[in-house]
């Protein structure tokens, strides 16, 4: 799977980006603040429409699609600073992340109550399975499924938001700074989850990160974005060791 976008943007952040994302690999997107990485994510996932160029995935053109349709095409996203949905329980968060929308039209769960019950049960089981897979048997989150989102710390919510993505049938995940602001204790877990996503679930991951250690450990390919264009792309070690990249981004 690959997609290409060549874009210009209303506020002139991206000035001609051509990016091919390789299927089944973890690609990191690095670059200074404000260089347009999140904007790129917004464009890919359909939240930013003010661009010229094309966003293609497996032959499908995303240009005219609305954000939610793009998501249904198999794009999952973790937002910068994204948390669990507040006011909802952990279980409700997980259920919403599922692609199974049975019963979500008004009164449909009243009319087709049997179908609704079985789909809810299936989603609940899937959520529990995911939690066990990531955190191990008998982990504390299994008991906290009915707790409101506010019961979890910032770091926990980041991991859970990441775990939540496994509920949907996605092909490509856009992760925006998954480790930022997170306790180092959790970073290992995040690394493990992302690796599993690639190896066990066959997902393609596009990752925005500022944590270079993390990028080295996790990413197969690294793309360096500077001043609205891609300056360098290639295997991670190669890019991060490149003289120019280290000079302009890392200041070394």
């Amino acid at each position, binding site marked *: 799977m690959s997609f290409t976008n060549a874009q210009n943007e209303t506020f002139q952040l991206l000035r001609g980006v051509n990016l091919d994302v390789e299927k089944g690999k973890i690609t990191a997107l690095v670059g200074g603040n404000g260089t347009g990485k999140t904007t790129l994510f917004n464009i890919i996932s359909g939240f930013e429409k003010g661009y010229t160029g094309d966003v293609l995935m497996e032959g499908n053109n995303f240009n005219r699609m609305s954000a939610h349709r793009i998501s249904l095409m198999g794009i999952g*996203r973790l937002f910068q600073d994204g948390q669990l949905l507040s006011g909802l329980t952990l279980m409700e968060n997980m259920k*919403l992340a599922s*692609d199974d929308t049975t*019963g979500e039209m008004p009164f449909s769960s009243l009319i087709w109550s049997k179908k609704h019950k079985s789909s809810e049960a299936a989603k609940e089981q899937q959520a529990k399975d995911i939690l066990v897979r990531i955190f191990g048997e008998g982990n504390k989150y299994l008991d906290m499924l009915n707790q409101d989102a506010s019961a979890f710390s910032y770091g926990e919510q980041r991991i859970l938001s990441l775990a939540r993505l496994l509920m949907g049938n996605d092909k490509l995940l856009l992760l925006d700074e998954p480790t930022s602001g997170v306790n180092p204790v959790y970073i290992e877990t995040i690394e493990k989850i992302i690796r599993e996503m690639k190896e066990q679930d066959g997902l393609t991951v596009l990752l925005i990160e500022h944590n270079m250690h993390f990028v080295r450990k996790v990413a197969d390919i690294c793309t360096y974005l500077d001043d609205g264009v891609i300056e360098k792309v290639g295997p991670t070690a190669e890019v991060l060791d490149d003289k120019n990249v280290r000079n302009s981004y890392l200041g070394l």
Partner: protein
Amino acid sequence: MEYVYHVIIMLNIYIMLVLSANLTIGMANLLTMCQAAFYGIGAYIGTYFLMQFNLPFLAIAALVILFTGIFSFLVSYASVRLKGDYFVIATMGFQLIVYTILYNWTDVTRGPYGIPGIPGIKLFGVFELFGVYAYLTLSLVLMGIIVFLFHHLVESPFGRVLNAIRADEITVKSMGRNTVLFKSLAFFLSAAVAGLAGVIYASYVSYIDPTSFTLDESIFIISALFIGGIGNTKGPVLGALFVVLLPELLRFVGLPDSIAANLRQIIYGLALILVMYYRPQGLWGKVILK
């Protein structure tokens, strides 16, 4: 005793109105200030079909739901294009426009003269309802149905999506939900129920004029909502109870009518301020306004 029945009938109507407001305001955090506009549209449309074509109740209800639903698309569209305070003022504008049309389009609505002699609702095309007992039963049944249906919505996956939209619409979109569709459905249902309440009201009091459907009335409905509580079923119902029964209590105490009307508004206003400060989810509500 008949007077008590009258109060109960009005209570049922207001329970429907406040519950309808809860769906958009309480569950999806869409602050509409135009419930009375839909209440009025329902009343006038229902009256029109009742008086012109003498249709049975179910047909009238369907037509009212259809028309208020169509108007609700205007509000839905506004909610997509306008955010925050702009949306609020757009709904106020919609309310004022509806009122102005009801007041000035005298050819159709008879403006400030109102429409008298509205006939009773016909059940199954045969029984024409008149008298307190009939409307008491009808309003209780309808209220019960609406409470049941709306309570279901609160607990249902649909309600879950609305709550999620309130929490973070962008994330919900990124989970593949068409949030515009969900909000439109919420507006539609909210308007439809308000409209139905309007038909019941029109047929019961057999006279309507635009002064029942003003911005003040919308403010009254949302006051009931915020005092009682948002986001669940208990809050709106008890809020309606509070605002409908309070004036009766004042009357009981023996206050002269001239002061009573203003005094109870003062009490509502104070209650609103105090609730927002001490218990912003409302006295019996579940969720706090964002």
